[in-house]
């Protein structure tokens, strides 16, 4: 009896010990397939959250002096003295290449591999990816592009910025080519930007091309013809075309800027202040956006707005960036109609690919300012007053002065879009003649204002093809003249 028991036990143990018993390594927590739509949605959200958050918006804004830390009174000295946390350097690079970039690349590969190919979906992902690559090279300069996201290259080589920008034009052209409005297959629900409106995607694609050419123009004037060609094409033509990543006044879907203060400061902005480099331009023209952009300091008199220098102690009367701009459902703006109008004003003022014409420029300029103000909900009457009595008429100015005014208004419009603001300030003139004319902040290392971010360690230590001679933070990128 006992022997039978033992033998049964032995057999039962051995019977179970076959290969199938060990075949349990397929994860129940994830899938081996995915739809391009869902990858696109993840990529877009990771991108929007990075842009609005503490790894991109804040360090760039502090460093490029669009907003102020207020020193120990506020956020504390660091980014405003060019001390960018290695985590921000790395996280932003990670977002562009991996959490956002790679998922778009996977979405493109899956969409094009489908039968029939989901060409529209692939094109939507390509246009967004092109915008992300553009932003990334505006921060870091030369970087992996032609060999990135490719299993054949374990150590992607760094491409020159000029090659990247030209490559992006081709990528966008290919995407436009791929779009077929008759094909109903496209990313619709998961497209948080345009909900699958392909006409808007085409206008965006052309507008991004224009932005890239405008960035290149000072260094490569030959793109003037391409700019001229685009002017006749399909560009962002109304505020309805604005390329925005939406946040929502819903729990855990709020704008990251709002969440920072909601989570850690009882919903008040204690840490981010008005910077004189923006505020003084606005104050000079009595800009009606002042009470929209800024909140009075807690101990300031009503209506008393004032800004603080970069890397300088604020006090309880210093104005903060308004909780209106930091509202929970404030969208992350990536391309706006007002921005397009400022480009058009600049193109006509400078005569890029077209004859210089300050009257046309002035028309676009006023419309740009009006659109910028409408976007932040300034009452129409106030806008009309401002345009009539405060905004200078650039049509009567010298071309140089007119361009200056355009750059000033463009810079003010981009205060809360710190990355575009950084591109604009570097692009707005030769070194030393930029708008605004930024000075080395108090306490920042000598050498000059910050013109690029260092490459993150995450890439440098892993990539044997990373440049060995690393540029200084004050070295210009290729496009920066």
């Amino acid at each position: 009896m006992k022997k039978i028991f033992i033998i049964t036990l032995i057999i039962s143990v051995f019977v179970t010990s076959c290969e199938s018993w060990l075949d349990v390594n397929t994860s129940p927590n994830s899938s081996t397939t995915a739809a391009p739509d869902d990858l696109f949605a993840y990529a877009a959200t990771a991108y929007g959250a990075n842009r609005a958050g503490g790894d991109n918006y804040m360090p760039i804004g502090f460093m490029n002096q669009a907003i102020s830390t207020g020193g120990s009174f506020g956020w504390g000295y660091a980014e405003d003295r060019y001390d960018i946390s290695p985590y921000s350097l790395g996280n932003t690079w990670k977002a562009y290449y991996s959490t956002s970039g790679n998922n778009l690349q996977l979405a493109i590969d899956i969409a094009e591999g489908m039968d029939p190919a989901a060409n529209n979906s692939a094109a939507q992902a390509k246009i967004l990816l092109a915008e992300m690559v553009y932003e990334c090279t505006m921060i870091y300069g030369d970087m992996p592009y032609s060999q990135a996201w490719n299993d054949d290259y374990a150590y992607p080589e760094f491409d020159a910025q000029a090659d990247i920008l030209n490559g992006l034009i081709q990528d966008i052209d290919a995407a436009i080519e791929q779009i077929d409005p008759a094909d109903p297959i496209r990313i619709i629900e998961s497209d948080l930007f345009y909900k699958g409106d392909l006409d808007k995607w085409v206008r965006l694609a052309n507008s991004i091309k224009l932005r890239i050419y405008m960035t290149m123009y000072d260094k490569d004037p030959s793109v003037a013809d391409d700019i001229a060609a685009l002017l006749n094409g399909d560009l962002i033509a109304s505020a309805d075309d604005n390329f925005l990543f939406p946040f929502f006044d819903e729990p855990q879907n709020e704008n990251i800027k709002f969440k920072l203060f909601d989570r850690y400061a009882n919903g008040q902005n204690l840490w981010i202040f008005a910077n004189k480099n923006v505020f003084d331009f606005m104050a000079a023209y009595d800009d009606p956006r002042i009470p929209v952009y800024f909140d009075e300091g807690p101990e300031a008199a009503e209506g008393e707005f004032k800004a603080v220098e970069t890397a300088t102690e604020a006090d309880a009367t210093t104005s903060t960036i308004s909780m209106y701009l930091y509202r929970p459902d404030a969208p992350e703006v990536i391309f706006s109609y007002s921005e397009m109008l400022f480009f058009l004003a600049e193109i006509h003022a400078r005569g890029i690919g077209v004859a210089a014409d300050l009257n046309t420029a002035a028309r676009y300029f006023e419309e740009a300012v009006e659109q910028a103000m409408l976007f932040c909900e300034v009452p129409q009457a106030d806008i009309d007053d401002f345009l009539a009595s405060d905004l200078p008429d650039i049509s009567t100015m010298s071309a140089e002065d007119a361009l200056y005014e355009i750059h000033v208004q463009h810079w003010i419009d981009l205060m809360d879009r710190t990355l575009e603001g950084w591109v604009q300030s570097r692009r707005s003139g030769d070194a030393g003649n930029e708008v605004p004319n930024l000075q080395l902040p108090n306490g920042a290392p000598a050498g000059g204002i910050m013109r690029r971010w260092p490459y993150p360690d995450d890439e440098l230590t892993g990539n044997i093809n990373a440049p060995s001679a690393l540029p200084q933070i004050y070295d210009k990128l290729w496009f920066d003249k």
Partner: protein
Amino acid sequence: MKRIIFFSLFLAMSSAVAFSQMKVNGTVISAEDNSLLPGVSVLVRGTQTGTITDINGFYEITVPGDDAVLVFSFVGMDQKEVEVDGQSLIDVGLTSEYLNLDEVVVTAVGITRSEKSLGYKVSSVSDEQLNSVRESSVVNSLVGKVSGLRINQQSGTVGGSSKIIIRGANSLGGNNQPIFVVDGMPIDNTFFEADNIEGTANSITGNVDVGNRASDISPDDIASISVLKGPAATALYGARAKNGAIIITTKKGKKGTTQVQVNTSYRWDTPLKLPNFQNEYAQGSYGNYDLKFLNGWGPKISEVQDQRFLDFKGDSVVLQAYPNNVRDFYQTGFTALNSTGISGGDEKSDFRIGYSNNMQNGIVPQSQYRKNGVTLNAGRKLSDKLSARASLNYIKTSSEGRPAQGSNDMNVLTSKINGLPRTVSIDDVRENYVDEFGDQIALDGDKSVNNPFWIINNNKFTNDLERMIGSAHLAYQVTPWLEISNRVGTDFYNEYRRQIYKKGTLGRMNGSFTTYNLYNRVFNNDLMATANFDISEDLNIRVIAGHNIFEQERRRTIVTGTDLVMDDLYRFGNAKSTSPDNYYSLKRLMGVYGDVGISFRNFLFVNITGRNDWSSTLPVENNSYFYPSVSSSFIFTEFIDNKDILSFGKLRLSWANVGSDEQPYQLDFQYAAANSYYAQFSLNGNFPHGGVVGVTGPRIYPTPDLEPQNASTFEVGTDLRFFNNRIGIDFTYYNTMTTNQIISIDIPLSTGYFSRNVNVGAVSNVGLEADLHLAMIRKPNGVNWNINVNFNKNTQIVEELSEGLTEYQLSSGWSGLQIKAAPGEKFGLYGTGWRRNESGDIIINPNTGLREVAPGKRFGDIYPDWIMGINNTLSYKGIDLNFLVDIRQGGVFYSGTVGNIRSTGLALETAENRDQVFIDAGVQDMGDGTYRPNDVPVQSMQDFWAHYSAISNTEGNVFDASYVKLREIRLSYNLPKNVLDNTFISGLRMGVEARNLWIIKDYVPHVDPELNFFGPAAVGEGVEFNSIPSVRSFGVNLMLTF
């Protein structure tokens, strides 16, 4: 009444004895030096009849009959049992515990072997040693008692976790914790961190130290612990024990005696080390009072006595320092450890039932921990050939109010306590955490920092755990030389956790809560055949063949509800938004193993083992791996006739090679439905975002052809005992090389992926272990003094990483702080340091007078050069005095707490130089390759400390981690047996004890250098950030045996 119950129990359980009384007498001597032993307890087994020997070692006792058994016991000596068998004169020689060469130790897969036959070092800890000073956690009670074992208590949280490293960390990839085995059943020792459903350990955000699961085992139920330190010792366990094994044997009933043991301790805990604060300056900025700042940079209190200021409650007050406001926040913690055990047995059966109860109230107000455990261990010989044993252990633990540590979480407590301005009274804070409307009164003028008592009273973290560990063992003696046995066991638990943020919590004004349901299960079966062949009188061969299956299953559900509608109602229907996540994993392992042991006469022993494992987590074509071991023991004193000086000498030699597998599900390219998206400062958002879900590809690029990891070790040792065993020295040298480690190495992010799983790297750990035993005094008058020293020097070197990889990040902290591995180095602490010139002078900024910084500097090793425990035992006539000194030498320690209290101007040293010009030591860079001594003063001490101690400037907060601690001290008294004559009590021991009594020497200001924030499962250590201070305990203990 009680007595009657106990007697009925005895009657029911002990077998009837025939009564025919007779007298026995004799003399008890020490077997080593023939000295007379007074005070030896002589007890008739199974009765309460007993006596003790007089000053001449003489005893006389009346025994009930000639089949009685006498039990002789004496502290520090092995207990001896002698059958009366009609003799009236029984002289006895007792041997010292330490000298028992035939001591049997438990080795891998439960095989018991005599210690002298082992070819590798196994450290055994008896229950006496374990419980010399009682601890609620079995892990903590091992501190300083075993060579080669390093234990770090992570925080002063009640029931908090401890990290164990045996002979240095071998693994780059994470867990370096040993396996715990209870009565042959490998149990779970998971440490699950709250913020990651996959349980990958690494986090900064507001984590609560919930303890590791090995601490569920009650030390009072443990009979002995064997520590298997190297692959040779653990080879039969396979991959699971690559970091060593802690083999626990629980108490069993003894034949014939029915015993009731009651053990009660009460303990009082206070913070071991609190920061030293300045008490001269109020809160503010640059000398001006400002409620906005919770710091010490305001005006000098003595200079503004003529002014009134608003305090945090809005009252107008004259400023006054409260020097003890931080100390007074903490309360005296209280612990009650109670256990009882009833055990007994007869010729065929034995049993033991144990119950233990542990009640702890922490030093943080309203934090508490409860543990209840019931164990049953019963065996029976069913026939001459078949025997069975079962053991069961049911545990329930619960805790409430354990504090959050780290940063970026509203519930983090210590930063708020240490950050109290010196002018704030803790009584005021305690009594004014809500206003008359029930709204919170914040500590700062901006109303952004929660009142700590709001958190303590409202946002209590709770957890509840129910666990069952059970195993059944059947053994069948097929023939006199062949035994077949099977042990099947399981260990499973359910844990529920809840973290809440009440509505009105600053930072979570609308309230939120998260619940965690965690289920873990381990299943293990070992089938074994053991054959013993006596080839000749001199030669014995023992062959063991075994088969093992092992399964580990995990199921987790984590749900967060945000934006609560009704206050104080933590149900998901009451939340406007919920975010659920769930996770499942299953891992299986099958192994076959064999062990051939040859013993020749009594001096040469050789063991050869082999095991082959098949793991579900590796690719099918690579999932099988074999590892062999050879060990040998040679007792060379068998060839020496004169044993006057060297009484015993043994050489040990072993070599082993073991493999190990991977975490489950690492091979396929997988897409995951994302639960959240990343944003800096722990501001992650949740999917669906605007109703849209997100799916992401993997961050770690999978490698489908992974191979098993490999560790090879060589160990040589000797056990020498001198002067009739008065001195014992045990040396072990070991060299372990771990290669082909499965880690995810960072790859260029531009590939689209963070990292790739590869087999790379080699880490070596070379070390020396020494155990020294000194019987300093062993006097016939009963005075004994023993010293036991254990020492471990371990040198860990990263021999290589992958080609092209110059460093590998093991753990990441914040703001540039990292733990990294680099070839040719030990695991090190890296971060932002001071910029220095070629001669090492610190370069000072010419404008600010502050130190310039440079990233990526290495500050030192995270592990010590050596550790040592010195244990003293003094005994005299039933009075024992034990004390244990614990020493760590080397390594570095980063303290975020120090950084915080310095940069906020609260630490004592920040009060200096405020009224003076301060020029930091360093040089000015002249820009032409030359330097002049720094002459630029800092603009203020506030700027200086804000920069010097900034969390991002790692170097300012790095210290030498060495320490000397008085770890344990105990004074106990065993009541003489004659006093207990005519009572139902057969033994009574009373004791006064203390743990973590005194940091004799350390180099870290303000905090205990032992704190660690990474948790026991991470490679990283030596970093502290807002940790709960560790505690010092005083207690009394009473142990009663019936």
